[in-house]
């Protein structure tokens, strides 16, 4: 395998609502400029481009096509797009670099969730014959998963609130975060339910946002960044779509991805968990002990730009390496209802 590293990362502020278009151009143009400026490169230095976004989020077919304009793709570029969180676009770009065809790649993801009714739109990810016609919204589905764990004694509402407390406090020092706060668990638990067993603090906010990452192979990476975040392992997998046949309190696909990516010895884990109990599932399933710092950015509970959120986790984890605050880190991304699809990217300083 070639050594490939994250050398550049930029993200937009995570906000409840932007005034931009659903094609992400307004968010992406400054981010691409920022990441190029930081690296001292131009679009001509990029060998491969890959993005992640969703037509259903934008409410129109081919919504990613206009986004390409933000890259200024003249002369034409070597480019691809995935209809998944941009963390999977990063995976495709990493693969492309592994083929030896290119040495650098720029990955971007964007989502303007405020344009529609996100929790209802996500019901359209469910089985179209027997489930989606009931419009089970994403909060309702997450609640079924949370209640299962509560009933089985795997976690309780106090544990869930503690996750929210830590994320909100961490977000206080994240200038891009949308939700911050210093309330303790007792104060959060005094709030009413949003959708029992979930309270507002258990659920990620609705967020507009975008992110950009630049990858470079050995040779290029060291000239572009002082401390590249070398990808030592990256893998992903998917679980069954049928909630009633899965044990929703576990995450076999996250475990499979973690085994392939080899997460041993990570000091920091940036987990993409839009619901508090999902962090508890992943910590248990991945065996992340108290010695692992969990999601120091505040994570999705502090800001959840759909289709960019997983890429943000990779960027935030990579920042720990480039800042010299950690030597080996893990980033996680998820997609689909109730943690159906999971990606793990392990990075280290060398």
């Amino acid at each position, binding site marked *: 395998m070639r050594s490939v590293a994250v050398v550049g990362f930029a993200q937009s502020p995570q906000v409840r609502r932007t005034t931009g278009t659903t094609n992400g151009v307004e968010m992406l143009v400054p981010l691409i400029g920022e990441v190029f400026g930081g690296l001292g490169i131009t679009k001509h230095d990029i060998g491969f481009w890959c993005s992640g976004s969703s037509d259903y989020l934008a409410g129109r077919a081919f919504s990613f096509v206009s986004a390409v*304009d933000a890259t*200024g793709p*003249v002369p034409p570029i070597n480019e691809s797009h995935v209809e998944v969180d941009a963390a999977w676009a990063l995976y495709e770009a990493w693969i492309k670099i592994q083929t030896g065809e290119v040495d650098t790649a720029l990955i971007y993801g964007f989502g303007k969730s405020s344009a529609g009714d996100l929790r209802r739109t996500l019901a359209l990810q469910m089985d179209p*014959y027997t489930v989606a016609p*009931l419009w089970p919204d994403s909060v309702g589905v*997450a*609640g079924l998963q949370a209640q299962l764990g509560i009933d089985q004694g795997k976690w309780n509402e106090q544990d869930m609130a503690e996750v929210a407390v830590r994320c909100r406090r961490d977000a206080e020092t994240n200038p891009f975060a949308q939700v911050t706060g210093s309330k303790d668990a007792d104060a959060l638990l005094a709030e009413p339910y949003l959708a029992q067993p979930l309270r507002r603090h258990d659920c990620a906010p609705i967020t507009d946002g975008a992110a950009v990452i630049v990858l470079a192979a050995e040779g290029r990476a060291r000239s572009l960044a002082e401390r590249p975040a070398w990808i030592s392992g990256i893998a992903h997998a998917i679980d069954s779509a*049928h909630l*009633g046949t899965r044990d929703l309190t576990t995450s076999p696909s996250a475990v499979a991805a973690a085994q392939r990516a080899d997460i041993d010895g990570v000091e920091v884990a940036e987990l993409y968990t839009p619901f508090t109990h999902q962090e508890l599932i992943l910590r248990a399933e991945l065996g992340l002990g108290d010695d692992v710092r969990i999601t120091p950015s505040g994570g999705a509970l502090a800001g959840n730009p759909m289709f960019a959120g997983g890429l943000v986790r990779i960027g935030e984890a990579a920042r720990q390496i480039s800042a010299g605050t950690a030597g080996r880190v893990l980033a996680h991304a998820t997609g689909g209802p109730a943690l159906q699809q999971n990606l793990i990217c392990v990075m280290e300083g060398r």
Partner: protein
Amino acid sequence: MTAVQPLSAPIELSFDYTRSTGPTLGRFLTGLARRQIRGVRAADGRVIVPPLEYDPDTHAALTDFVDVADRGEVVSWSWAPEPLPGQPLDRPFAWVLVKLDGADTSLLHALDVPAPDDMHTGMRVQARWAEAPVGHIRDIVCFEPESGAARAPAPEPDAAAEDVTMVTTPIAMKVLHTASIQETLYLQGLKQGRLVGQRCPQCRKVYIPPRGACPVDGVPTEEEVELPDRGVVTTFCIVNVPFLGQKIPIPYVAAYVLLDGADIAFLHLILDCAAEDVRMGLRVEAVWKPSEEWEYGLQNITHFRPTGEPDAPYDSFKEHL
């Protein structure tokens, strides 16, 4: 620069999707039309409801159908205090995973109880059937707490009823569409009967409509350029297909019109002449609606018509094809 508030308007998406079911789901849905719930036995012996078409382990097609009860036990639940459009009930309810008697997996549906205090995992529930089932998951209106009371017997299955092979699923949603700042300025110009493009600060090309990102340079166009409402037909086609909502009699001409001073053409209609008289290079001018009908859109120009000027030479527009 004064802050421009971008224009926005909703996009309403609504379509009745027609889903052919294939044999396995068809059998399940045909059962529902007869108030009967069917699962399928997987290779490992589990009874899966609703049936999967293919075995989770061997991936072979599953064909061993098993009838299960329309009652069972709640495996998990969550509360839905404010139902969203399209959900099974229009008052607060619970989402439930229900393991039906005879099944080894659970089914997602709604449970009709007044309050979350009435909920607990393990509670017994039964299906509430629609008055007239048609072969759709919503033939189960919802579940309700099991009662000891005898229920009306299921009607005799209509022996003449055909098996279900198709389900119709209406999907309606609303998304707020927002124009870019650049497009907003252009639309505000149109509202006043003006054609306002913008120049890219890097390549100096004039775009109409202007762009949030110049597609060559990836930077917003900015310097406003007022353009005349006349130009040249670069290329075109003659449309002979009647289209939904199209009010213009066929044949008509759809053409790329390059305004004088612009560096990009847009599609518009050429009328007021015979379709066969339209040529590449034809000089045309805009025909505007009466000003009191002007809105935020290019439809303020109903069409373009020939000016009678000599045609533009091919070389003058060939770079725009």
